[in-house]
């Protein structure tokens, strides 16, 4: 099957498609103006979250409504660095307004760019590992887990809003000027940051693809389709779930860091319940269980949002709600599922039906 896959024209077309998409993405700065480029950079930052979310939802069957938090924590880590850089040794402005006279101890190390980046990955990962450790081990899963992730969103956002002196409260952290000594608003930096984001997206995509294609990925799919059977075979699903959930959170953290670089602000409202669930919608629309679908879904939805939500705010909410219902009920595999249904030949359908049959009847 492997050789057949390698030689099949479909496979070639697919590779050509990936190459074309990557080429378009990397050459975008040539033909987009600064405003559009910044917008696209933001979408790409969002698109980084999607394959990570797909790893746990599409491939492992764990639905997290808490990815906004991991995204946000990454963003805050970067924002703390940028804020200190902008304040130039002085106390960040919002701390002064809230009556602090000295920089809190946990802000200090964030003066270092490398440390901030590291924390932007490690903090979300640690939080995910913490939650995963205390839930998956006890076989708390499915809807229960989803509800807990949502509760995590609520408490993290209330905490961020409540501790105004340390976090900037509802306003969040903003007012950045420099990154590593360079002006953050200059077109050159912007273009560079865009390329960095695109490169990270490609790297994350390849990483996720590697995970999915590996033995590890096979176990993940097995957990999705029959967790108990996996356990009886001798695997410990909890370990796999913890690892993949942590990885997914770390990816979201990276995306958050890039997001803050492009948008220049992070506040609790950008990581709350609604943004978290919108992230899930990107994956649902693009197609859970296909990484490229998830990433494209993120770009597509955010593009649509920026086009329509300001001109037709009411219509946009109706549209969003409607899409949610329609996609979940009628298109469980999203647009990617629709495409493969329309395009691929009968042999594939038969195969997927056989796979499906295997799930339904243990004897097969």
């Amino acid at each position, binding site marked *: 099957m492997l050789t057949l896959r390698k030689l099949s024209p479909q496979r070639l077309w697919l590779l050509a498609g990936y190459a074309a998409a990557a080429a378009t993405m990397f050459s975008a700065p040539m033909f987009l103006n600064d405003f559009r480029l910044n917008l696209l950079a933001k979408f790409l930052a969002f698109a980084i979250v999607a394959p990570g979310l797909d790893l746990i939802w599409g491939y492992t*069957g764990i*639905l997290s409504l808490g990815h906004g938090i991991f995204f946000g924590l990454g963003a805050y880590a970067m924002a703390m660095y940028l804020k200190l850089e902008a304040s130039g040794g002085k106390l960040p402005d919002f701390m002064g307004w809230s009556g602090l006279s000295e920089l809190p101890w946990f802000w200090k190390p964030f003066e270092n760019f490398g440390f901030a980046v590291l924390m932007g990955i490690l903090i979300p990962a640690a939080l995910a590992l913490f*939650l995963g450790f*205390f*839930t998956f081990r*006890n*076989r*708390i899963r*499915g*809807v*229960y887990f*989803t*509800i*807990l992730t*949502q*509760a*995590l969103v*609520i*408490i993290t956002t*209330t*905490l961020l*809003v*409540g*501790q105004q002196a340390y976090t900037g409260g509802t306003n969040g952290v903003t007012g950045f000027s420099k990154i590593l000594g360079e002006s953050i608003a200059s077109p050159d930096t912007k273009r560079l940051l865009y390329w960095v984001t695109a490169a990270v997206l490609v790297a994350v995509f390849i990483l996720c693809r590697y995970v999915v294609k590996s033995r590890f990925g096979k176990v993940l799919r097995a957990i999705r389709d029959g*967790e*108990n059977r996996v356990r009886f075979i001798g695997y410990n699903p909890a370990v796999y779930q913890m690892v993949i959930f942590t990885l997914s959170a770390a990816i979201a953290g990276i995306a958050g860091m890039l997001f803050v670089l492009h948008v220049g602000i992070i506040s609790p409202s950008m990581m709350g*319940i609604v943004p978290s*669930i919108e992230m*899930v*919608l990107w994956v*649902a629309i693009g197609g859970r269980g296909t990484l490229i679908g998830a990433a494209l879904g993120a770009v597509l939805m955010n593009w649509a949002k920026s086009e329509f939500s300001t001109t037709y705010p*009411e219509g946009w*909410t*109706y549209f*969003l*709600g*409607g*899409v*949610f*219902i329609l996609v*979940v*009920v009628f298109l*469980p595999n999203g647009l990617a599922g629709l495409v493969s249904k329309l395009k691929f030949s009968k042999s594939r359908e038969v195969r997927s039906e056989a796979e499906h049959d295997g799930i339904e009847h243990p004897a097969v």
Partner: protein
Amino acid sequence: MEVIVLQLFNGLSVSSILLLIALGLAITFGLMKVINMAHGELIMIGAYSTYLTQNIFNDYLPKSMFDWYFVLAIPVSFLIAFLFGLILEMSLIRFLYGRPLDSLLATWGVGLVLQQLARSIFGAPNVAVTSPSWLDGGVTFLGSVLPYKRLFIIGLVALTLLAMYFYIYRSLEGRRMRAVMQNRDMASCLGVSTRRVDAMTFAIGSGIAGIAGCALTLLGPIGPSLGTYYIVDAFMVVVLGGVGKLVGTVLGALGIGVFNTMFEYWTNASLGKVLVFICIVAFLQWRPMGFIAMRSRSLDS
């Protein structure tokens, strides 16, 4: 002493509202494995029904009658939310059987649409509902004033709970419901119309959410996103209490309500929430299925 009494009372008051909201959630989840994220919007619908009842009394009936609008508002809120629930079940939920995570997402979409609908009809700003004058004031107990409004809500919740108890454990419909909950296929084989039971149960759960919305109008102004403040806490009640038995939900609501008020009093609102969450996660280490879990020999329950 006064502080303790007041905090306990506040905790009880919060619990009672949570209980009202979580009842419907717990029942529908136990029965159908459907998580209804639009539940918060059913609360909102109940609240706006009360608002409309008030307006009708204000506009068309003599002033002396106004105080009694609330008595009518309770059944009206129940009925309207009940109807919305019924429509929702018949048109959408039934396609989502056995897909709990998908039901969660689809109903979130429904919630979004309903919220926007409320915003389009009633406007985005909050509206105030005038509480009936017979609920003003309070009773003094051990040196602290307990407002009548909150006492009334606690009483209302107790009554609803009692009614639910009789419905579930003492009526034919309730027996069928429990049968479906325990073993859907078997109940179906024995002639219980599971479709009917599902629809009724979902609608009743929605109706109770409507009553919760009605009760919330006593505590402050209401707006299109009223339900979202309570919904996640209500879900936590379900997680903590377990599904399948009323008493689990009651314990879950009491636990979250009382601990939340206590922690918030000792620390502050944001830290209190964190502590409650940590307590819940810690508790789940001990009992992963919540206080009361339905015993079953099936593996994937």
